[in-house]
């Protein structure tokens, strides 16, 4: 596997900062807005955004973590069942402006499940999507992000990892590419 850093620590911070200001542009004081991070990795993005947003706005922002395991469309099509993470949402989304947050947007299937799962908490006024990384090719459903940290073009054989200071020790986005076999 070849490794290529797409966002380094500095760019990573600038990107998150920009996303915060883009959210504020559209949501002003966040009166009716709630942020929902998708478990497990979207919650990392959410936690960072929440800290920065609250610094800028000087007030708390309503946030929740949503697990989508039981809403996935690949149940029984996988070798092993996926073990769920915790859902932690102590509010109702009825008439709220919801921003769903995930780290990587790729096929769009996770987001589809996320929208379904979120609807169990009421009927929101609107739903937007924020993705730190958008792998824009190979989408399998008609889903696009409203806020994108970085758009990249990738092949299906490649893999994108978002790494976090809290988890992996450093903030960065890495692209793994399979080494090509030489044809001689």
């Amino acid at each position: 596997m070849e490794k290529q850093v797409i966002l380094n620590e500095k760019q990573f911070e600038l990107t998150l900062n920009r996303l915060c200001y883009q959210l504020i542009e559209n949501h002003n004081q966040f009166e009716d807005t709630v942020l929902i991070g998708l478990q497990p990795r979207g919650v990392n993005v959410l936690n960072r955004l929440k800290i920065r947003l609250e610094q800028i706005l000087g007030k708390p922002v309503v946030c929740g973590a949503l697990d989508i395991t039981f809403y996935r469309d690949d149940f029984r099509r996988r070798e092993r069942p996926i073990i769920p993470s915790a859902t932690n949402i102590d509010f109702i989304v009825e008439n709220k402006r919801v921003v769903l947050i995930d780290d990587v947007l790729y096929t769009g299937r996770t987001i589809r499940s996320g929208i379904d799962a979120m609807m169990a908490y009421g009927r929101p006024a609107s739903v937007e999507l924020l993705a730190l990384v958008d792998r824009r090719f190979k989408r399998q459903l008609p889903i696009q992000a409203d806020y994108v940290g970085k758009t990249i073009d990738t092949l299906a054989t490649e893999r994108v990892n978002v790494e976090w200071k809290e988890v992996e020790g450093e903030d960065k986005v890495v692209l793994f590419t399979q080494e090509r076999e030489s044809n001689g």
Partner: protein
Amino acid sequence: MDNLSVEHLIGIKDLTENDIQLIFKTADSFKEIINRPIKKVPSLRDITIANLFFENSTRTRLSFELAQKRLSADVINFSASSSSVKKGETLIDTVNNILSMKVDMVVMRHPNPGAAHFLSTKVKAKIINAGDGTHEHPTQALLDAYSIRERLGDVAGKKVVIVGDILHSRVALSNIYCLQKLGAEVMVCGPTTLIPKYIQDLGVKVEHNLRKALDWCDVANMLRIQLERQDIKYFPSLREYSMQYGLNKEILESLDKEIVVMHPGPINRGVEITSDVADSKQSIILDQVENGVAVRMAATYLLASKIER
């Protein structure tokens, strides 16, 4: 992550400790879901489940049905009293007829020990045993242990006494297996006539004095006296049983610690447990019922993930 090591849920005896922990971990998520405004997830929307009850049940049948519906499965119900079993059809024929309607999973209660195992060797569907005679009642044991874990933080190292009719109780046997696999110590307590002869071979303590048993334990699981399974007299009278083995406020308050009181239901108020104890803060009887739905959702979900099409 792990998968269950079994293809059917026949008895706790067949499960590993990992299986039980996996079911508990999954049940934690379902418990959160059944406390949401919309208590339903679409996971099993292409699965059909038949509930076959050849023996009466209220709680278990409702609990299974609710668990299945909260997972979005299609459910058909069948009870022996209103069926062709009365006309002389065999178990295999009854079940095969139901399976030819494309059923993926069968939840069965049957008066004969081993009925669920027998069925699992003969038909293609996944089987969940909802009680087979005096043999096992795995989901009850799982929800009991889950409720202890919820109240006391862990099951390992805890002392649990099972009081009452051990001889006729599938709940007792499944509980003994389950608690021991999770590292708890188990004692059984009751009149000599209601304690099976070789029960010590399972590694449980035996005590005939309720007071001594309660002094020893952290949790007391009070079983119902199953008059319907007793074809001979095992004790002189219900009143005498109640005086010797009934749990009441006086004896609970005379203990130097607060123990947790459980009962698998249905309660015979005033026989194995008095009303004030059953409704007290120490009793987790209604938590057991709530957890029953979450645990049955978890077991159903994990088994359903093994269905092949």
